């Protein structure tokens, strides 16, 4: 049998395999460099970058719940300048032979544009920008860009005008119809969609009567959100004709394949890394074994092949 191909095309972006790391769970790559052979990954998505350095939220910032994790990190990051120039961040990532996705965020549309424009001018080694729209817009009363169709369209359009880099828009699951948001951001220039970001959640210690995170509620990730995420990938795949990166509770190759059958061209691993940093490599190997056992030569051939009738 011919060698199975895991090469994955996301528009013009070509990955060695369909497995990348999820933003916020793999730092800037360097933190895991001696534990995971980075060049074996399909790609690395970095922690959200904003134009300004950000302290993030007061601890406690995470709490483990049954089959999941609630986080409220608050997007702590070194800011654009340091990210672009310090050896721990972009300069390091440029030395790694894998696709690098830069997750970006801001508190105003101008913030997003500032990051996108600066990265556009020094785009060497950057495969794509991933726009995290699950952030409150302070200019418009704190309503999240990701839960308001008009704002979502505006921010994507503004970023589109600021860069020629491929754009991924990362959607929030916290809306009635994620597919509407997918259509909207694609209409405004997004080249790809990634789903899902974390789901709003809360947990209380009944003895201290305190929520597990300082901000009372946070975002749920891990096993608990997987079936929700698979459904959203399926809905988005039927709504738009652009590459999709699926994520939410992927711990194994079986999980990843489920996302691909639902319509994800690639998958991202997040919370599972905290349990086992080797998860992406196991997932890559497991996808290969699955394809071999079904006599399929090209990983793209399983994307969206769920049987619904």
């Amino acid at each position, binding site marked *: 049998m011919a060698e199975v191909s895991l090469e994955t095309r996301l528009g013009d972006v070509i990955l060695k395999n369909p497995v990348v790391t999820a933003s916020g769970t*793999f730092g800037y790559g360097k*933190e895991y460099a001696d534990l995971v052979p980075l060049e074996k990954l399909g790609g690395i998505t970095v922690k959200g970058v904003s134009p300004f*350095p950000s302290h993030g939220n007061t*601890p406690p910032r995470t709490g483990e719940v049954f089959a999941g994790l609630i*986080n409220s990190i608050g997007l702590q990051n070194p800011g654009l300048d340091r990210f672009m120039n310090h050896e721990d961040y972009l300069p390091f990532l440029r030395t790694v032979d894998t696709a690098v996705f830069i997750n970006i965020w801001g508190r105003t549309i101008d913030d997003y544009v500032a990051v996108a424009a600066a990265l556009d001018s020094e785009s060497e080694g950057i495969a794509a920008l991933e726009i995290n729209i699950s952030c409150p817009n302070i200019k418009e009363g704190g309503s999240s860009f990701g839960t308001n169709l008009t704002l979502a369209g505006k921010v994507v359009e503004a970023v589109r005008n600021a860069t020629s880099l491929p754009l991924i828009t990362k959607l929030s699951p916290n809306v009635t119809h994620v597919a509407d948001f997918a259509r909207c951001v694609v209409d405004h220039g997004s080249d790809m969609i990634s789903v899902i970001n974390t789901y709003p959640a809360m947990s209380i210690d009944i003895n201290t009567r305190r929520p597990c995170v300082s901000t009372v509620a946070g975002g749920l990730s891990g096993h608990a959100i997987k079936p929700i995420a698979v459904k959203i990938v399926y809905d988005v795949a039927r709504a738009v004709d652009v590459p999709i990166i699926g994520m939410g509770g992927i711990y194994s190759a079986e999980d990843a394949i489920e996302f691909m059958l639902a319509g994800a061209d690639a998958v991202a691993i997040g919370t599972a890394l*905290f349990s086992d940093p080797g998860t992406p490599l196991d997932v890559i190997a497991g996808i290969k074994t699955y394809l071999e056992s079904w006599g399929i030569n090209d990983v793209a051939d399983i994307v969206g092949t769920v049987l619904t009738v």
Partner: protein
Amino acid sequence: MNHSRFQEVCDVLENCNYRGDYFQITFRSRLITPGVKAGQFVHIQLPDMPHLTLRRPFSVFDASTDEGTLSVIYKVVGAGSTALAAVERGKRISLLGPLGNGFPATPIGRGIIIVAGGYGCASTYLIARGAAQPGVCLLGARNKADILVEDAFAATGFRVHISTDDGSCGHQGLVTELLDRVLTETAGASPVTYACGPNAMLDAVADMCLARDIEAYLSYDMNMCCGVGACFTCVMKRKADNADGWEYVRTCRDGPVIDAREVYREDGTT
């Protein structure tokens, strides 16, 4: 970080009740053990707990490169440590380590003071074992049952003093009261203090040492997720040269050991 870190699946050689709620677990670890420094920790995957996937951080109590063994002393406090206490010899468990910066090496010819509250003795024992010369070790706990490994410290040649809140062993009162006395006695030997215990105890140790201009290193304990510096869960405030005067640093990577002079205090004290 100079040494490499590893993910290693380790055989459990022994897991026994040490005293009260405390257990000691020993692993066969060929990869992690040789690089371990005092004050570093391992991140342990919980066995057979598919609904609790986060690892739990524990200081390395003892490590022997010759024998390829590494042990941890832990208190049963919740679901994870309860599951760990049920593990039997022969079980294979995944460890990530050695993690964190660890304590700096002890200086030759100067006084060495170790202050340990509760399971803080676990992260400080390797200081005593590898010390340039013996010093003084102050162990504090709520009661006698929580005083651990005093014999192991004594065997390194360190003088051991004990304090308990209820007076059931040693001095009745706080370990910092013992420290006050020792700092006075050893002032001439320009001592260095190494401390691990509840965060409030560390703050008190820092205050006393800073007031006397004595070098001190404190190992802080914060909730963790990744353990390697990637997720920004475990942050604490450290003084910084920016408009706010502080920054959040990752206890798992930039710590857990922090120089007392660098700890940022909300109340504005230095």
